[in-house]
């Protein structure tokens, strides 16, 4: 019980300090400067950009991800310390959005890394971003933002999907199936 109480307090305080990785993965990064600066000022909520993934808690996938970026995103995500959270930003992270038929962008981010929260829109307004952060804080407080636990638990599946995407081939699927058969 005491451990639970401690966790609650820890979450309650930690949600007030979310550091995000300074990584512009797509065009949604364009709305990040306004959110950081005088108009919207997200530092009010203790959210600050950080230079390296080691220091950060939140990974913002700002828009579409090409396969080449996905490799870096996975690396960045794995470098981050637990607990860590992912926000999918814009329609392109949900189903591909504008780029639904592009050969180089992934269509569904949650197949490759666990996503705690999506923001819809192309591109989402700063207000939507702020709202997402507030929602994420709420989720952290309630203990619902458990993407990082999922990543540990279903690591094999995420890795398999990532490998497929990196090689632009589905061949990996067969390997897994064979393994299952055994």
């Amino acid at each position, binding site marked *: 019980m005491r451990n639970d109480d401690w966790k609650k307090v*820890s979450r309650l*305080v*930690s949600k*007030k*300090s979310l550091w995000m990785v*300074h990584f512009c993965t797509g065009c949604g990064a364009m709305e990040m400067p306004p959110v950081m*600066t*005088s108009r919207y*000022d997200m*530092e*009010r*909520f*203790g959210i*600050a950009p*950080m*230079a*390296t*993934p*080691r*220091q*950060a*808690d939140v990974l913002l996938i700002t828009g579409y991800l090409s396969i080449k970026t996905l490799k870096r995103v996975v690396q960045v995500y794995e*470098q*981050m*310390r*637990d*607990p860590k959270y992912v926000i999918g930003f814009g329609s392109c992270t949900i189903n591909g959005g504008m780029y639904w038929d592009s050969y180089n962008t992934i269509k569904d981010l949650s197949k490759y890394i666990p996503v705690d929260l999506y923001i819809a829109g192309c591109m989402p307004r700063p207000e939507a971003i702020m709202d997402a952060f507030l929602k994420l804080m709420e989720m952290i407080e309630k203990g619902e933002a458990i993407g990082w636990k999922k990543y540990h638990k279903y690591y094999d599946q995420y890795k398999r999907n990532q490998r497929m995407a990196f090689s632009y081939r589905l061949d990996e699927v067969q390997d897994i199936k064979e393994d299952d058969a055994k």
Partner: protein
Amino acid sequence: MVDLIALGEQILLLAGMVTLGFAIGMFFNGFARKVTARIHNRIGPPIYQGYIDVFKLFAKKTNISHGWIFDLAALFSVAGITLAFLFLPVAGFTLLSTEGDIFLILYLLAIPALGFALGAGASGNPNAAVGIMRALILMLAYELPLVMVVVAMMIHYNTTSLATLVQMQSGMHWAIFVPVFFIGAIIVDMALQGMLMEKPFDIAIAPHEIASGPMVEFGGKHLGALMLYKMMAIVVETTLFVDLFLGGGVVLSVSQYGWIAYVVNFLVWFALITLVFFLALLINAVFPRFRIEQALKFYWKYDALAALLILIWVFAGVSI
């Protein structure tokens, strides 16, 4: 028995002071961000943000280490800066400062930086290596004018102990009111800007150039320890300045006013270090950063030259 109780009191006092130091340091983190935000036309984080950040970093679940040197480095930094704090006279509390002199403090200030360097070196990241090289060069740069002014003051006041220096300045005979040391204060303030790693001298952690330099591989609890070090360093370095030039914040004599003097002195000290830090923040907000060789040139050419003149002035004044 009596000795034991006195020792216990002493230890309690020290522990209390260290806790207070860290608390003030964390407050300064929030304060700095708030002031900077106001200059940026923003509201800024709550003033207690520093406490939250440190708490969060220590609550992080995983810790990725790069070997025992890496682990030790953060501890090294915090321990070094804490020791430096203990050897400083703080608002009339002498703590351990009667034991050591000012050179000990300057040595102790170098220890955390070296610990920092060890840790960054152990992380094996080239950005960290470049950052640490810059940090060490910068340290070399600002220490020259700093030491020269300090030596000048020692000659003038004829003491090497910071506690004695503070005592001699009591009754508002602050060193900054002596014309020559007013210039000295400006010189040391410039050096302080480098010590605090504020612009134009935040060369070692330049995020746009080397992605926050030495801290690049630190995260979680390691980063938390590092932040504690940086926060404490603000307190130590500003206190050093206040002790040197502003009488350590001692305005009331303890023998005359008793415990009220402690409270008042403490408040004055706090106000003074906040003021010194505030000045540094203002300078920080309006300047870009130098390149490392420009910083070296600035310190050695202008700052050190002025410090040398002061040294000669004081030396001549004493010997004549």
